[in-house]
């Protein structure tokens, strides 16, 4: 069979040859900074900071609710 472009005979290891590192994927398009996101970055930063603060404010209110339960 062929494994990563290297022909492997029956009984032979399919791991990397001695002294050769395992391959590492570098391409990860999902985490690149896309133009659409770049344009709206400031707006999104504001949104997420506001959402975070709002969440923790709700959490404090929830704490008060648990006290009154």
């Amino acid at each position, binding site marked *: 069979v062929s494994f*990563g*472009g*290297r022909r492997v005979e029956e009984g032979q290891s*399919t*791991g990397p*040859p001695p002294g*050769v*590192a*395992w*391959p*590492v*994927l*570098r*391409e*990860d*398009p*999902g*985490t*690149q*900074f*896309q133009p*659409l*996101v770049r344009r*709206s*970055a400031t707006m*999104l*930063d504001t*949104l*997420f*900071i506001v*959402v*975070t*603060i709002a*969440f*923790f404010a709700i*959490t*404090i209110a*929830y*704490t008060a609710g*648990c*006290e009154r*339960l």
Partner: protein
Amino acid sequence: MDAAGWVQLALIIAGFVVITKPLGIYLVKVLDPDVGGRLWLERWLGPVERLCYRAMGVDVRKEQTWKRYTVSMVVFTGVTMVFTYVILRIQHILPLNPQKMGPVRPDLAFNTAASFSTNTNWQSYGGESTMSYLSQMVALVLHNFTSPAIGIATAAVLVRGIARSSAETVGNFWRDVIRQTIYLFLPASLIYAVFMLFQGIPQNFLPYTAARTVEGITQTIAQGPIASQMAIKMLGTNGGGYMNVNAAHPFENPTPLCNFVQIVLFIALCSGLTYYLGRMVKNQRHGWAVWGSMFGMLLVGIIVCWWAEAHGNPRMLALGVDPSFGNMEGKEVRFGIANSSIFASMTTATGCGAVNAMHDSFTPIGALVTLGNILVGEVIFGGVGSGLYGVLVFVFIAIFIAGLMVGRTPEYLGKKIQARDVKLAALSMLVVSIFTLGGTAWASIASWGTAGLNNGGPRGFSEILYAFASGVGNNGSALAGLTMTPSNGNIMWNFTQGLSMLFGRLFPAIPVLALAGALVKKKAAVADAGSFPVTGPTFVILLTSTIVIVGALTFFPSLAVGPIVEHYLMTASSLTF
């Protein structure tokens, strides 16, 4: 299911059983020195502890009520989460970035900050292709230390609520977190990091290496300060990997010995906390009974998952695949079926979330076990601290049910369980199912939800259910195959998942702290012949049944349209999706 696998399983169980008692005793000394006595490490690290208090302006001699404790926890979590968000957004202008990583996009930074601050460590990114060394070492590792400390502190508050009688205060948040960091997590991580270096894990600030392979192609070898992060990743049941493929990568999990130690470490503190419970409530047999219930469920899960993976996929076998290999798709050859199944079962049961195999490649029954471990509420040892307080909530419910059956006021270790206590316990459980099932339902019918799927049909549904279960349950492992950070810039997966992690962490924890506040005020009565025994097989069976029945009643319908129907489609039909 070969003999070598059974031997490895036995060694892993022996490993964490042996350290349960010494770790439990150590935890009592760290968290409650007035009960457990002074730590020998205080002789050297005591000045550091006192310096921290002075720098923060905290008077740790003053204990807090449950409300002040909760506010301290919420404020600390919120501030550190914003700190992480900012670091990730500006990492491109900060030092220790030899690969010139750009700023993390806003939705991903929000998701990651929420994920790490809640001890979930769900990763919608590949670490080696997204994060600078500084982001890994400061923005993320900060939470790897503080989030498990907060989990253990919350559990300690509930245990103090049970153990103390006619009191008002439940401890001091800052003291609990700092003592754990100085006397537990930092020393243990230092020793473990050196062991990791010895096993071959890199620790450097070098740029990635461009290597030419024997096939003649160029590949990039990612590296960096990895060893120092592996210790706290496992010990704190964080699970967030330095590399995208987590513990399947040879730089994160290079040897069989390393794999063994990692498994033992991520269950160690969860197991030791049950001994801490027994020591604090002066009923060691109760601690072991809780441990026994968790262990029984863990062992059943491991064996079922291993059996399913060892028997493989019948459709593949029909094509002539050697049945002795089992289901090797998505598994590292060097770990094999047994080590992958044990790791997967234990990482989902304990709330760690690290993976050494692709869970999306597991058989439907194997995936059902990993999903089920999370859906019962992360109480099969669970996350550090959160597992203990989660199972204690079930103890309250179990004793309440037992009290109803025999017609007596339910009583737990001398404390009467009243209506408000049961309401708080029920609230802590209900919010988990609301956010898990609500999020799954929304994503299942929304275009943004299904757009990220790698599979159709029941496996696709399982990917969505798993994502929300893992987020709300603060596990962090993924069935994978789900793209949460699409290149079209859609933010909904990262946004909703980030929120689910926050709700899943704080909304069950706060009723637990309120419950502790109610319990600590109660006077403990002396147990008599009418008190429900919280030791022995009857209690273990009652507790286990309560956990399984509540979990089954809540999540069985969703499991039925996910892994269960997928299993029957695989074995008794020719349908594909």
